[in-house]
């Protein structure tokens, strides 16, 4: 069987996303089903440009990257999901609950089979 480069890249995600650098992530789908023990890349802080000044600043903007072929159910546009991810790379760090709507996940990376999730901070309703 011939394997093309895209297929090879997707297969490599098991190392690049789910390998030694991976963090443990849980997903909860709109039906309330919990998918625990997933592996993915978690970046808590990212660089972005301040639109007012043009300067590059570091902001707390978590990004979670998951391999789509490892998911039992892939988030679809318009669905509301919960993602639980570690608040820092420290061993035993507590998990943070984030909310995301798949509408806000345009970077599906379908070419090589990963998706990025940008969770929003969620507060407990009083």
């Amino acid at each position, binding site marked *: 069987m011939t394997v093309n480069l895209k297929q090879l890249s997707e297969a490599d995600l098991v190392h690049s996303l789910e390998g030694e650098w991976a963090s443990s992530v849980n997903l*909860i789908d709109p039906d309330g089903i919990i998918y625990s023990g997933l592996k993915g890349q978690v970046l808590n802080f990212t660089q972005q440009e301040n639109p007012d000044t043009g300067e590059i600043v570091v902001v707390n903007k978590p990004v979670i990257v998951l391999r789509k072929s490892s998911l039992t159910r892939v988030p679809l546009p318009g669905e509301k999901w919960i993602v639980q991810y570690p608040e820092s790379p420290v061993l035993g760090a507590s998990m943070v609950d984030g909310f995301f709507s798949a509408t806000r996940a345009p970077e599906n990376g379908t070419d090589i089979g990963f998706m990025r999730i*940008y969770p*929003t901070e*969620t507060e407990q309703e009083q």
Partner: protein
Amino acid sequence: MMNFRIIKDAILETLCIHQGSDFRVVGHQKQTKSSKEVNNDNKLVQVLYREGEFPARGQSNIIGAKHNLVFNIEFTVSAAAVGDIETATDSTATALERSNAIASIKEAVERVDCQLDEFIDRVYQILMDASNVDFGLSKGILSGRRIERITKNDTVEDGSLVLKTGMFDLSCSTFEDVQGLIDPNAGIEKVIDTVIETVGDNIGKVGLEITTPLA
């Protein structure tokens, strides 16, 4: 001090008097605000003198120059999503309970827009209240106070929160006096030693010495 500065301080003071625990008033600051800093009850309002116009027909050497002022009243709010996150993530709850909790989560984008509307309403009521027609200043310093325009800017996703800003254009008029150049040596004591000759002073001369600083 020109009246526009006095009026700006009065607007700030009026907002400060009425601020509760739900928002903060600051003078204009160029530094950008972190969305975390203005989340929920930490809404922020700033006052900025934006522009002034001196119409040709309003100039007078007697009552001063008419000055039409425009102030920007700037609002900043940010919000997180809100919902029953405890139930939504509770592994001991049923899937249906979790599903209902997730479905009822209000997205941050929706919340921040409502928060800004409420904030605009609140500040409008303060500024346009009849008791604040002069912003606490003496009668005659300002006139024609009105909100000309309300602007809401695009929602910005700022990290894990969303941020929204808005603005009032508040206009009014005043008259500015020219109070003369400020002496660069003000504060340094000057002595003016002079002699005033009075008519009918046959005995001597009346002397007058002024030692007060010139301001």
